[in-house]
């Protein structure tokens, strides 16, 4: 049986949000709805500060709490591990939103806002008709593309190929081989919030090294630069000018 999963290598990721936008375009999501997000995290105090970009999306958990929480049975898990939310069955209760420990399900109960003027055919004819209002939404691993043998939009759009998608049950899949190869280099994958116990399909490889910082720790001031006039280094006036 297949088990589709997403591996994100944080050594490769540059936090560029190409995934965010590719997803938005592929899935035609309204204003303020982002299935694929990039958390921009900073930790520490200057100068010992670190930045970390963590792309997040629905983890398509094996033990998905959203699925159990839905009173309308709108959420189901396919044989290949992809967890889907049926727009037609969803009644917008928001139970799944509360149940997801990762905050990756989005529900706007009010009328959706959009980006373009109402008479633009692009949104009017090709984007808006694809969604029902007032229902919960989340990443589908682009199941419609996967079913065609394609990779999810965020994966093909990632300019650093930081997102590896595939079947972890198949030892010869790209994702399995990647995990194996990096394991040999001493890098182990990890999952977010393992304590939530949902057996997420999303996994990560961390940054390859810790960042060093080097500074005297001062402020940027108008600097005092003392030219060295004590030692005449040349007897030539025209060259001496060059030291001013």
């Amino acid at each position, binding site marked *: 049986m297949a088990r589709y999963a997403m591996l994100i290598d944080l050594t490769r990721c540059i936090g560029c949000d190409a995934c965010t936008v590719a997803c938005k375009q592929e899935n035609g999501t309204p204003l*303020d709805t982002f299935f694929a997000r990039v958390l921009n995290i900073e930790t520490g105090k200057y100068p010992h500060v670190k930045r970390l970009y963590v792309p997040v999306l629905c983890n398509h958990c094996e033990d998905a709490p959203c699925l159990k929480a839905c009173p309308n049975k709108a959420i189901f898990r396919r044989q290949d591990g992809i967890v889907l939310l049926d727009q037609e069955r969803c009644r917008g209760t928001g139970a799944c939103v509360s149940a997801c420990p990762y905050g990756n399900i989005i529900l706007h109960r009010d009328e959706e806002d959009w980006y373009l003027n109402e008479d633009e055919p692009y949104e009017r004819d090709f984007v808006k008709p694809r969604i029902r209002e007032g229902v919960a939404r989340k990443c589908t691993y682009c199941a419609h593309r996967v079913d065609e043998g394609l990779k999810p939009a965020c994966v093909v759009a990632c300019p650093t190929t930081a997102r590896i998608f595939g079947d972890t049950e198949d030892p010869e899949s790209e994702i399995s081989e990647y995990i194996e190869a990096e394991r040999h280099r001493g890098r182990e994958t990890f999952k977010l919030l393992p304590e939530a116990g949902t057996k997420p399909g999303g996994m990560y490889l961390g940054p390859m090294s810790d960042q060093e910082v080097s*500074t005297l720790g001062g402020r940027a001031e108008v600097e005092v630069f003392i030219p060295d006039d004590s030692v005449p280094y040349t007897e030539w006036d025209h060259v001496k000018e060059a030291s001013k």
Partner: protein
Amino acid sequence: MVRTTDSPNCTGACGWLATVVDDVIIDLKPAADYPCEAYNPRGCLRGMSMTHMIYGPDRVKKPLIRTGARGEGKWREASWDEALDYVAEHMKRITAEHGADHMLLFNQVVGTGYLQKGAQVRMAAALGMSFATAYDFNGDISMGFTHTVGIDCVECETKSWAEAKYAILWSSNVFQTRIPDAKFLTKHAKQENGCKIVCIDPRCSQTAKGADLWIPISPGTDGAMALAMCYTVIEEGLVDWDFLRTFTDVTTFVRSDNGLRLRAADLGLGSDAEFVVWDEASKDWFVLPSDSLVLPEGLKPAFRGERTVKIGGQDVVCKPVYQILEDTIMREEYRPEHVAKVCDVPAATIRQVALEYATTRPASIVIGMGLNHRLHGDLTIRAVLLLASLVGAHGKPGESVSIYSGQHHFRLDVSSWWFPDGIRPKPCPMHYFVLGGPTETINPKIKYPKDGFKALFCSHANPLVTEFSDLIKETIDKLDLFCVFEFSMSPTADYADVVFPCPTFWEKQELVGTSCHPYLQIQQEVVPPQYDSKTEFWIVNELMRRVSPELHDRYFGISEEEALRMLLENGGKECSGITLEQLRAGPVRLNVHDPECGCDDQFHDMKPFPPRAYPFPEGANKEFVKTGRMEFYKEEEVFGKLGERVPVYKPAFSHLPDDGQAMPLCVVTPHSKWRVHSTHSNNPVLLNLNRKAVVEINPTDADVRGIRDGDTVEIFNHFGSFKLWALVTETIKPGVLCIDHGWWDRYLAGGKYHSVHTHQKVKPTHENYYLPAVYAPGQHWKDTRVDIRKVVNAGRAKRGALVTSGGE
């Protein structure tokens, strides 16, 4: 589905597959079809969200003629005939009353589109108009490169980064500005190759995230650090003498009587254009070959030691350039322990990075505009180039000094299409338009029109969202005609007399090249020009038909297709053999080295410097480096007057008036991933992710001013002020503020973004020669100093309202 490429000013020139249904573009995905697999995929969030610009709310749909005062926003929609007639009448009148040279064309990054932008230049040439190369005005011209190698910038193809084992990103924020190329650092260089990445930047930028070592340097002091690294390299005996004697001028001699270089003619050994070195082997002078960098075996040019020669009967003492450099650098002021306090970087770090850079091979440096957008940015870059030359780190895969600002660079010779019958428009740097007239030191090759400019044509450009917008507006106010070609109602279009609606990159054909990668590509008309827009090619044709039917028939009686073929057939060695049919099938690699390492003709093929500067003839830039080698000594008097004959360090803010220097904070203005300059400022999808204009401020600076995260704040100095929102962050050095460049004023909390910037100034060493966009004045807008205060009673932005896509 249509395979195409875009051509914005990031100049990524990424290949796309566009899905079109009923003439609507509904999807854009990276084409990922570059023959070199490492380049796949190319693309970023900006390119992908172009649908929201193509169909965006600010799209200019009809020709517009102003009815109110300039900038008042009162327009009437006009037919094309009416708008074209209106502009053509003005053009004819200005030509009759003053001359065609009183009309100025300013179109941006001409290197990204040879056909459409070329059509505009062809019109300017045919009519005898003036032409302002945008590149120098952007400040991206890197005069430090021109002074050293004779061309304004050098870059390797980004694939070459993959080979590096050591990479210094010197104020370069490639993770935001070169998104499609960043993989060569993260995936290839680092993950596969174990490359160590050093990031020198006052802020822990997105790129610093990927660095092994982050050095938060004090802004503007990079030149001091580079020279201190040179100090270390010399002190440790790590100089690559073979590289220096082959590729640089350091073995040539300088005369003590006039500061000029010793010529073969001075010694009766050759011409005035030939230079000599002292051969330790034969104990005699040797005349350097002018047609090659190859030196005879056994030649041992002297690097040190004065020699006295007889010139015109007089004894003249001469000294090799290397000795002058060493005497300049090996002094207390450039000792790392001294420079440490200046840069706020530990001496041990300066030494460590210098040693690692000198001894790890291959080692790359990528320079960002934080170094260059300064009055003394030329000196800084000369110092960095000297550092790389001392250790011979040029011209090999993974080993170069690159500055990806050279995006105007032509990948082929466009002269056949741009300059009909060899006629060129009259060049005039935009600086003089903005200053309202020439400087005293203006280069005599520049003919500033006698009555001042009367008309300005702006295309692909948004100069009213730059640091000198006020000055530009003052100059525009004196014009009879301000005509803008645009697809989006930008602040510049908003100030125009006439706006011609143009197509986006997705609605017209174009021939596209870039410095980032060596693939030539065709941009296709994925959908027809939308609304009532027309291509630049069409508009220029119609203007020519009205202004001069005779010149129209002579120069514009050809189709776009014929013009494309003309460009390809006459493009020179780089594109010889490449056909339109091949390009329509996909990207084609130019006839260049693989990988391109920068200055391949020199470092690989041993031809003398400078590299050819397209679209100028071979030799047009020869006088910038007369020795035919990389020059670290500039003999021209104008350098002597400024004390800049050799790379030295000058404090960045020393040229500001006292009240400017008294301002407590520096401000850096990086490009952000949300925009390409000011393009995409109004992209609704990207605004949904990047919601407010913020200033990054360190908590220590915020606390003393009572500023909290999200507060409305005012940036001010003696020039002006503007308001935006505070983002209090530990990722920025105390004493430095950071505001992304390119925000349109309407997104601020008040005031004008550019109002605080230091005033225009031109350095005389940028005027002693002139070649458009190669040797021309640069810019210095990062030398601004400011203060910041909380705006009382202005309310606060909600937590998380400043940035999104997760937030904290």
